[in-house]
């Protein structure tokens, strides 16, 4: 019985830690890709632009809010950006122009198979970081000069020769992106160097992003036209279509959750599966506990009769079995938790990049599970509750045993 609980709790803790790790990995990648935990995009006549990003950043920094990094970005949102090299070309989902010095801490999670973030910080001008799929497609390596092709807002073509300073390992939907200096991208777009399209805001860990976004909107409302925080991109576009542009530019805040709106379905499905597995495990454990306790109560009939004869009340008999079950579940859960710690360390070193879609949930093909203590306590409480519930019927039965009958039995 204890073994069943240990195994069950180990699996539950492990699955939860994997799920948490997956969610966290996706969020970290997404924050890099989508301009922070809260992205503030400026729109001027429906076109992405912030005319005075410096003042806006200064205003944000002066707010007494748990924001750890606030940086400008220029993002080329059109999907026609292409990289050319060696006779091959590859389209990029987006181009991100970054102030690498200001955002280096947030980008430190980018893992490189060649080159580095430092290269961009040192050599940066006319440099570009491309993803492994792009590099493979183009046959490009660090040091190669590739041609970046975009169309301006007027529709005209523009190109720039850039040097590959790093190739980062990202194969998922966050991988079809290239990072370059904001100044270089602005130059390519024929913009002034200080202009931006977005402000990337990174919040402190554990903050409620929606609430924070609403607070930011409220505080900016005195000086800017700020749209309400939308729950998805499609809602934002709908809102933008109703803006009266004659009144000036607008700022549109979007949280990471809104950006991940379409991905959330996948993540939700993943969570549902983990909860399903959890419930399944708990049910299996409960059935095991129920059967085992029924046998246990039968085996201890004489002991129960003796205790009842000595003056133990029915409630005490019931509680005795329930406390035993509870103690068993707590000790076994703790053992299971310890085992899951080991399992987590083991899974961290297994490369699962071959699995379909693994690129989205892993860093370099490795899962980054982590055991959330709060979740572990919840799981322990769930397990304890389930075990006690399962033991309830046999405990009740034990309590109702007539002492005289019990003492008569051989057991």
């Amino acid at each position, binding site marked *: 019985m204890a073994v069943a609980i240990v195994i069950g709790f180990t699996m539950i803790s492990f699955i939860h830690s994997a799920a948490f790790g997956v969610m966290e990995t996706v969020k970290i990648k997404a924050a890099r890709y989508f301009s922070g935990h809260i992205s503030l995009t400026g729109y001027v006549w429906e076109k992405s632009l912030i005319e005075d990003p410096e003042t806006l950043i200064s205003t944000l920094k002066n707010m007494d809010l748990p924001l750890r990094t606030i940086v400008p970005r220029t993002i080329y949102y059109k999907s026609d950006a292409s990289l*050319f090299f*060696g*006779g*091959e*070309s590859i389209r990029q989902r987006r181009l991100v122009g970054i102030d690498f010095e200001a955002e280096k801490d947030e980008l430190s999670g980018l893992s490189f198979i060649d080159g580095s973030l430092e290269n961009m910080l040192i050599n940066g001008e006319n440099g570009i970081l491309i993803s492994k799929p792009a590099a493979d497609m183009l046959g490009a390596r660090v040091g190669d000069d590739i*041609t970046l*092709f975009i*169309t*301006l807002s*007027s*529709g*005209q*073509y*523009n*190109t*720039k*020769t850039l040097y590959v300073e790093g190739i980062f390992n990202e194969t998922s939907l966050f991988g079809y992106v290239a990072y370059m200096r904001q100044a270089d991208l602005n130059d*390519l777009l*024929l913009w002034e160097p200080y202009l931006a399209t977005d402000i990337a805001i990174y919040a402190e860990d554990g903050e409620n992003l929606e609430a924070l976004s609403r607070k930011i909107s409220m505080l900016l409302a005195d000086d800017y036209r700020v749209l309400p925080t939308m729950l998805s991109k499609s809602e934002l576009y709908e809102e933008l279509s109703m803006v009266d542009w004659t009144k000036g530019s607008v700022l549109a805040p979007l949280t990471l959750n809104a950006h991940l709106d379409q991905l959330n379905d996948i993540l939700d499905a993943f969570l549902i599966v983990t909860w399903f597995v959890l419930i399944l495990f708990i049910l299996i454990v409960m059935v095991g506990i129920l059967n085992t306790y029924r046998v246990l109560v039968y085996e201890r009939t004489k002991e129960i009769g003796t205790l009842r004869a000595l003056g133990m009340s029915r409630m005490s008999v019931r509680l005795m079995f329930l406390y035993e079950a509870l103690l068993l579940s707590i000790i076994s859960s703790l053992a299971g938790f310890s085992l899951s710690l080991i399992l987590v360390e083991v899974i961290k070193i297994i490369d699962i990049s071959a699995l379909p879609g693994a690129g989205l949930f892993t860093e370099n093909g490795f899962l980054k599970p982590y055991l959330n203590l709060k979740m572990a306590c919840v799981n322990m409480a769930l397990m304890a509750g389930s075990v006690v519930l399962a033991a309830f019927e046999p405990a009740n039965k034990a309590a109702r045993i007539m002492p005289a009958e019990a003492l008569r039995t051989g057991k």
Partner: protein
Amino acid sequence: MKHFCIFIILVILPVSFISAQSSDIEFLKEVDRMVTFNTTDIAAEYKIVKRDPGGANSTTVATMFRRDRANQFVILILEPVVDKGKGYLKIGDNLWLYDPIDRSFTFTSAKERFQNSSARNSDFNQSNLSNDYKVTGSQKAKLGVFNCTILELEALNDRVSFPKRKIWVSEDYLIRKIEDYSMSGQLMRTTAIPNYQTVGDRWLPVNMVILDHLRSKRINNKIEYERTTITISKPSLSELPDTLFSKEYLERVNR
């Protein structure tokens, strides 16, 4: 005397500037005129062969129907079999691509690559350099056997595919070579038009060779570019029915 000279300079310079500008426009108008069929329709067969750098060839055969006076054209793809029945319809500034499998029309851009070759859809437009570009520089040079005027052009609008161009125009006002540049001045394409054929009182290229400089590979220490060769044959000035320049025509042809 001094004032007279200043007056002369102040008058002559802008006048000469304006007259230089107007002569450039006239030059471009003449270049446009040589290849524009304003009084008749024109049809011809186009064979487009694309060669990837160091790689395979792919061939498209299409029939082109043009009505320059109305700024319309229709292109019907005949080969390869997998693309047979596909069509392009241009009416004014609108360009549609017809897919015979879906039986649907989708808007496309003149700037898009034509059938994934180095040619752009805009290459099939009638020539309109005099309205779309201004001359920013000119010089004389020899190109093979041709004495050419080289004009540097900058786009006047956003409709054209390339913001900057350089054209080599021979003494008969026919373009022999074009270099297309991006806004930053990077060479994107080179087009050579060695031969022309007379069609009525106008000219049509016999063949064109387009090199895409963005798509290049170093092979055996030599740079090879993606290359598209367009051969234009069987030109005809027969009048075309008005109904040909319509969506219904493309649908009907595919039934």
